[in-house]
């Protein structure tokens, strides 16, 4: 009899809890009419091998000897590989780490990076997002044996939450790092206060990336979902660009040079696009500094004053910027610009999509960004693709681009004109 009572009690309890849970959820309309079986299941990524062809994002960098290095992740594993023949073949990849908890931030604007250093060593960085947390942690690892082995990855910071790191190496070998940092946002939340975006934080390393000093948030309220970009200034100091949240939720852009002592940002607002929006554009700016020291910036906006992809330059270190110039064909949603300055000139490339095909148009300027050659299509694909990145080695310019259908490509630039 006791068992029957226990059974009945349990049965009733089960029913009541199930009903209570159902009642706690809002009843939502809209699902019943959708005939999902009519929709096709879509294929998973083409491959899961540990090679650049299978990565969603790839970051390229040439070392002094002209060897191409790439950092990329496939699943929860981060790899580095090198190529002596401009990405036709790659070395057996070196595994940096396989995560047991969380994911490697390698999607859209976010990606692991590799930085070849002046002493032929290599620095790798990546950001993890643990399963139960929204914020990330930046890790770095070092190799001094030509990428055969990497040191155990070390966190840049152990609290606060970071994302979107970028690096600049000076001719003297100092590595400057910049990233978006949620420390102040977390403090504000704990105090029940509102806080828009992330802080913009910096640090530097004089031991080849083994340790970083001077970690400091120098500005608050950067848009937390767009990448930062960095470039080396002519005076050996790093320049950074990011999307900033100005008064009134306006998500326009800011560029600044880090002072020699690493405690001050000197720069200014790139343009007044007036994009007042409480949203994540998921698209940060591109930055390059040319041989004369001029700053070049490309960015995306849907502001009141302009909409689309734009470019401007500053010849007074961010005090003033040229009138924004529209890039690309608006009918094809131009996006994700990349800039590169070499001794031969200034280059800008970006992505366009016409509904069927994605193309990468490229232009060159020989007068510091005042005028540009006609756009030429450097590559195309009809499937998913990574953001384009322009990279140079010994004066040659290449487009680095991973596409789902064609795999990873390093395409040398041979412009018809100029």
């Amino acid at each position: 009899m006791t068992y029957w009572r226990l059974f009945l009690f349990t049965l009733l309890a089960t029913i009541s809890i199930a009903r209570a849970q159902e009642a706690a959820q809002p009843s939502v309309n809209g699902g019943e009419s959708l005939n999902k079986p009519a929709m096709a299941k879509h294929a998973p990524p083409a491959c899961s091998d540990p090679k650049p062809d299978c990565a969603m994002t790839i970051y390229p960098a040439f070392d002094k000897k002209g060897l191409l290095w790439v950092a990329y992740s496939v699943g929860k594993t981060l790899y580095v590989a090198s190529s002596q023949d401009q990405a036709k073949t790659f070395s057996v990849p070196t595994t940096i780490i396989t995560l047991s908890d969380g994911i490697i931030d390698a999607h859209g604007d976010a990606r692991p990076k590799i930085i070849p250093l002046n002493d032929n060593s290599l620095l790798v960085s990546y950001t993890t997002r643990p399963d139960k947390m929204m914020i990330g942690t930046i890790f770095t690892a070092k190799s001094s044996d030509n990428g055969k082995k990497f040191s155990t990855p070390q966190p840049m910071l152990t609290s606060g939450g970071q994302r979107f790191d970028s690096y600049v190496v000076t001719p003297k070998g100092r590595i400057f790092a910049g990233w978006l940092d949620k420390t102040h946002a977390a403090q504000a939340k704990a105090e029940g206060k509102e806080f828009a975006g992330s802080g913009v934080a910096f640090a530097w390393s004089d031991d080849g990336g083994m340790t970083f000093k001077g970690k400091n948030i120098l500005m608050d309220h950067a848009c937390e979902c767009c990448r930062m970009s960095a470039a080396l200034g002519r005076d050996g100091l790093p320049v950074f660009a990011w999307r900033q949240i100005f008064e009134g939720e306006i998500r326009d852009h800011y560029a600044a040079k880090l002072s020699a002592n690493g405690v001050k940002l000197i720069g200014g607002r790139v343009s007044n696009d007036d994009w007042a929006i409480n949203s994540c554009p998921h698209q940060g700016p591109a930055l390059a500094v040319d041989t004369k020291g001029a700053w070049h910036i490309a960015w995306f906006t849907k502001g009141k004053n302009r909409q689309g992809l734009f470019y401007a330059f500053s010849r007074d270190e961010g005090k003033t910027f040229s009138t924004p110039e529209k890039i690309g064909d608006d009918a094809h949603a131009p996006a994700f610009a990349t800039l590169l300055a070499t001794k031969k000139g200034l280059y800008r490339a970006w992505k366009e999509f016409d509904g069927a095909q994605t193309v990468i148009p490229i232009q060159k300027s020989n007068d510091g960004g005042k005028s540009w050659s006609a756009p030429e299509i450097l590559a195309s694909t009809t499937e998913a693709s990574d953001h384009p990145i322009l990279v140079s080695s010994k004066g040659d310019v290449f487009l680095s681009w991973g596409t789902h259908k064609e795999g990873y490509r390093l395409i040398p630039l041979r412009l018809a004109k100029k």
Partner: protein
Amino acid sequence: MPRSCSFLYTLSLTLLSLILLSGTGLSLEFKPYGRGDFDQVAQLRENRPRIIHYWSVTCPACIAELGQWTKFINEHRDIDIIFINTDDDEDRERAAARLEKNGLSRATHYGFSDSFVEKLYYEVDKSWRGELPFTVLISTNGPRVNVTGALDDPHFVAWLNQLNGVKK
């Protein structure tokens, strides 16, 4: 122990286990969303207004307003509301946890299952590059409205006012 008692004892323990296991709420299913699917998702049912809301776990603005969507659903039962998570599979569990935490388990959810995201964006709006939150508002009372921004965006509020105005 008699056999019938043993059976009831086991059954009771099983049910108790089920109670404990079900403590996290109802399971959440993301239907796959890929190229060509937008037109079907955007079809009105019995001319009821429809909201299609695209969001991601990497979008703090999206996450911050999930709770407001719960409230919105309860206050607008005459509108069909569809949520589409734009993350890839790696982040789907995280997305499910966010929805469950905000009481949105029973809503209709889709998840991007196609990595050709440019095409998915283009099918919705030729000028959309993936900025979020992004919401599509459809009714028989006027043209389709695409809104980049949060629930309190003026375009969203205007669409809702127009909807309510026509009904009055």
